[in-house]
């Protein structure tokens, strides 16, 4: 909790509060903390996708000098949460089963004095297994679909619609691939007290989960996650390696560090599951959508059910009276998937926004106009509640102007520059804007130095910076005097940073804490000036060096005086805020319109992004630089999703192939064009005192469809299977 106090740079207050610490390496990721006497654990993965372990071969590894112990299902410590009937309540029951559910499943943890010893010894551990059938082929077995949400209207109402469209869309597995490897350092400081340095998206969630597994109160566990090098959803649950580190630390009575390797990151911390979608739309000749049938399937593991909410976006974005959504999960010999940036909606948007584009060509109608005709911007069609704010139509219109949509040729394949075909595409994104109960503490010193504290993690999104911006605005104290402390379970409680709820949640709490601070200071100030006795918080003004009353220049009292007269040390307040009755009256959403221009080489199939424009409604923009950074990053993620990201399994062996960064491609700078991001910037008056709606997820949602829609406009080739690598262009 000491790294967020660096001096701010010239472009403060926009600058990242943790920026200098990050780029100088002073900021520490979970694995980088120095813990005296720490020993190193390396996990060994199964080499088969199914079976039962008959024998563990650990003799050779144990003989390596420096090896301390090798944990497996044969010798793990007693852990109440993984024993008996609870087995998969906490996910993969690591070291509590001899069954293999997927290839790469951790079967042993080699603990050694040095990382090098542990790695070498781990390479010598292997097991004998019984042979069992496995399946990693998503398309092999027929799976029945079930209703997913309430049906609206009926099929009969639109079976004779003038224009009908029916298409299937598929996406391969995608990997979160954060820069920082998942890692845990675990140390039992007393019999039932555990200290964890851990990469995750929510320290309080880790306390509850690990407490549940080990049967100890959550408050006995201290979790520190001050810097998180990206996560994209992979840090939203506790994974087996964290439990393995804590088990080994308990068994050996030593602090144990476990850092995943990059290939292990592909099988041990989730992924966006492979998916299939079927979309049927009926419309009248004027482009009024009459009915939609959206079906979806996604991969899950054999030991847990994970459903991505793929059809959710279709239920919310368009005003369609007849709607049926269905889904199913496909159990495979794979590890369990997890939410990945824009979960569900990102996949669903590829389906519905591709289908809407296809429909626009059938109608011979501008796809932008088709969207404007059908968006549901007044009410949430699913709940019937009014949107608190929804500026999607403004996003559509502004985006079209910025990209120069009028230069699009409505006839595919007609805009040609040499060997390159040029195409314009657009698509929409939608995300339910959430907010969760969060606490924040503020400490003020006589010098005017303000410290804002919250357990929330900042996974690279700029949460800490936003907290400072909000505190500065609500106290009047300059940014450079504000210190942020976060990512530690000793601080006031916060939800996990996920689902784009971070800023809405912590922002509301920071505002509440600022109010509490003003009121507390006013009670001291009342000892000097009676006008403070009946003052309302909104009339209290704070400055760098003192407190005052609005429109009353005589009321100013310096902090020096206030502190001396009242014999104060540090003034501390804590406040909690969360969603309330507004959720009974309004629905909340963040929305975006994506536009892009692509060029496709007519001979080689090479696709090059030429330009991307995104206009988003995220309510109040607290920090435009950080907000634009979120959406630019999401767009680059969208390029990856559309054009290159895929993790395949070899179905002969039931094992991932090429699961490293040589094999799994995400977009690099060289793949990204100029990306222009702008915001509607109107406050949502109901979501929280700050008025901000989350932007992390929505930036990616719809992006891939905008790109494939542009490929169609360029070439006349409709790409319904992601990613669109050049071979698919050539062969279609």
């Amino acid at each position: 909790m000491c790294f967020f106090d660096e001096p701010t740079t010239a472009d403060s207050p926009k600058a990242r509060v943790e920026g200098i610490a990050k780029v100088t390496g002073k900021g520490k990721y979970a694995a980088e903390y120095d813990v005296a006497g720490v020993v190193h654990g390396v996990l060994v993965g199964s080499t088969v996708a199914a079976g039962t372990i008959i024998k563990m071969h650990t003799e050779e590894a144990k003989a390596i000098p420096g090896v301390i112990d090798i944990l497996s299902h044969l010798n793990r410590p007693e852990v109440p949460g993984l024993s008996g009937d609870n087995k998969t309540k906490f996910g993969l029951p690591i070291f509590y089963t001899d069954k293999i559910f997927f290839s790469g499943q951790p079967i042993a943890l080699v603990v050694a004095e040095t990382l090098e010893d542990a790695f070498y010894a781990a390479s010598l551990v292997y097991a004998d297994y019984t042979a069992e059938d496995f399946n990693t082929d998503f398309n092999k077995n027929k799976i029945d679909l079930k209703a997913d949400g309430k049906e609206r209207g009926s099929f009969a109402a639109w079976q004779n619609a003038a224009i009908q469209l029916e298409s299937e869309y598929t996406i391969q597995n995608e990997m979160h691939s954060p820069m920082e490897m998942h890692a845990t350092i675990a140390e039992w400081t007393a019999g039932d007290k555990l200290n964890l340095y851990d990469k995750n998206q929510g320290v309080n969630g880790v306390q509850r989960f690990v407490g549940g597994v080990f049967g100890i109160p959550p408050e006995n566990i201290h979790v520190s996650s001050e810097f998180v090098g990206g996560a994209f959803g992979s840090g939203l649950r506790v994974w087996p390696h964290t439990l393995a580190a804590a088990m080994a630390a308990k068994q050996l009575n030593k602090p144990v560090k476990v850092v995943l390797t990059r290939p292990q990151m592909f099988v041990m911390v989730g992924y966006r599951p492979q998916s299939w979608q079927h979309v049927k739309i009926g419309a009248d000749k004027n482009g009024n959508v009459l009915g939609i049938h959206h079906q979806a399937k996604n991969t899950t593991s054999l030991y847990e059910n994970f459903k991505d909410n793929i059809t959710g976006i279709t239920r919310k974005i368009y005003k369609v009276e007849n709607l049926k959504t269905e889904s199913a999960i496909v159990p495979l010999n794979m590890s369990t998937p997890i939410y990945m940036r824009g979960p569900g909606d990102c996949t669903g948007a590829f389906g519905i926004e591709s289908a809407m584009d296809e429909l626009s060509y059938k109608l011979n109608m501008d796809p932008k106009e088709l969207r404007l005709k059908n968006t549901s911007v007044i009410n949430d069609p699913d709940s019937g509640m009014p949107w608190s704010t929804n500026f999607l139509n403004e996003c559509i219109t502004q985006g079209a102007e910025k990209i120069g949509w009028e230069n699009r040729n409505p006839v595919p394949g007609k805009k040609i520059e040499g060997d390159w075909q040029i195409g314009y595409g657009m698509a929409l994104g939608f995300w339910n804007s959430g907010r969760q109960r969060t606490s924040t503490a503020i400490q003020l010193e006589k010098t005017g130095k303000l410290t804002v504290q919250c357990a929330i993690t900042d996974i690279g999104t700029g949460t800490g910076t936003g907290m400072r911006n909000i505190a500065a605005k609500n106290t009047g104290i300059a940014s450079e005097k504000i210190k942020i402390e976060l990512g530690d379970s000793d601080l006031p409680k916060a939800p996990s940073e996920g689902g784009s709820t971070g800023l809405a949640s912590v922002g509301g709490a920071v505002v509440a804490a600022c109010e509490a601070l003003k009121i507390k200071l006013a009670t001291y100030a009342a000892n000097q000036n009676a006008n403070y006795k009946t003052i309302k918080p909104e009339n209290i003004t704070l400055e760098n060096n003192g407190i005052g009353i609005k429109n009353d220049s005589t009321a100013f009292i310096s902090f020096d005086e206030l502190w001396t007269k009242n014999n104060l040390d540090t003034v501390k307040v804590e406040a909690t805020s969360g969603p309330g009755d507004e959720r009974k009256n309004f629905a909340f959403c963040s929305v975006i319109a994506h536009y892009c221009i692509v060029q496709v080489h007519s001979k080689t199939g090479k696709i090059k992004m030429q330009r991307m424009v995104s206009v988003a409604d995220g309510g109040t923009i607290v920090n435009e630089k950080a907000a634009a950074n979120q959406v630019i990053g999401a767009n680059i993620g969208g390029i990856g999703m559309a054009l290159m990201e895929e993790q395949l399994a070899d179905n002969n062996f039931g094992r991932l192939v090429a699961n490293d960064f040589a094999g799994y491609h995400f977009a690099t700078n060289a793949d990204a064009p100029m990306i222009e991001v702008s915001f509607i910037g109107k406050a949502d008056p109901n979501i929280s005192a700050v008025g901000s709606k989350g932007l992390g997820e929505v930036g990616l949602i719809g992006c891939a469809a905008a790109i494939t829609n542009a490929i169609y406009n360029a070439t006349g080739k409709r790409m319904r299977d992601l990613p669109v690598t050049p071979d698919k262009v050539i062969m279609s």
Partner: protein
Amino acid sequence: MKPFQYIKATDTATALFSAKKQKSHYVAGGTNQVDLMKDNINYPDTLIDITTAISKDITATDKGIIIGAMVRNSTIANDKTVKDNYPLLAKAILAGATPQIRNMASTGGNLLQRTRCPYFFDTALPCNKRKPGSGCSAIKGDNRMAAIIGTSAECIAVHPSDMCIALAALDATVQVTTKDGSKQSILFKDFHRLPGTTPNLDNNLPENALITGIKIPVNNFYKNFSYLKLRDRDSYAFALISVAAALDMNDETIKDARLASGGVAHKPWRWYEAEAFLKGKKATQANFAQAASIATKGTKGFEHNAFKIPMLKAAIEVALTNCITV
């Protein structure tokens, strides 16, 4: 990684003296060797650091250029003589890997890169190249990146280098010092091997011998050349198909042509028949298309890489066109 003894050799003789059959490996830039050791594919008892044992010099003469085996890839790509007289080489190097890797990788090591076939890297699965006789997982597995020419029933892996495609096109020679100290020159076209029944052998470098340099003869291919690399992303990805093309033009007539490809075979592949066709022809689209057809006629795809054949044909046409237009 298995523990090993580390020796830093200060000259070629010491390096060769230290080398013991099967048990020792050389390391230069380390960009491939260290990966292979981390993945337990290479596990030498002794690692001989040759960074100060072999030449770091680029020497130009009126007959050609000699690039010391320890010259870093980025040094070649930025060398003025190379850029002026052998620009195809610079272009190919810059299409490969990342700036960080090119700053480390050596010339000799570039020739000795192992394949990036995913099955070669996964020690849990069969691979004839890594473990002779264990089988080829790629033939019936994920073979999207695999070869389309010169394959065998035992291996369909491709050679990964970009630099080597240019060296093949430019008729380079590999200078070698063998264990007993004698010097050899190996024609580039004979340096790398096809898999046949011994896919574990990538090349014909004698055991424990050292590559000391690469020689490229003077040529007229510095005006009309191109290196086209098609890949899944624009940086840090291996080629789906790459084409090194160079034309020696006399007005509109092609006096001589060079055409080589990566991503197609177990070795850098020269399209000799297509080159012969182009000699004496006009530089027209029709002739380029014909050359591309000739090149692709002996190719054969597998389940996931059949696209490489039309992609190769297109890439050859575009690369030849780029020789005279870009």
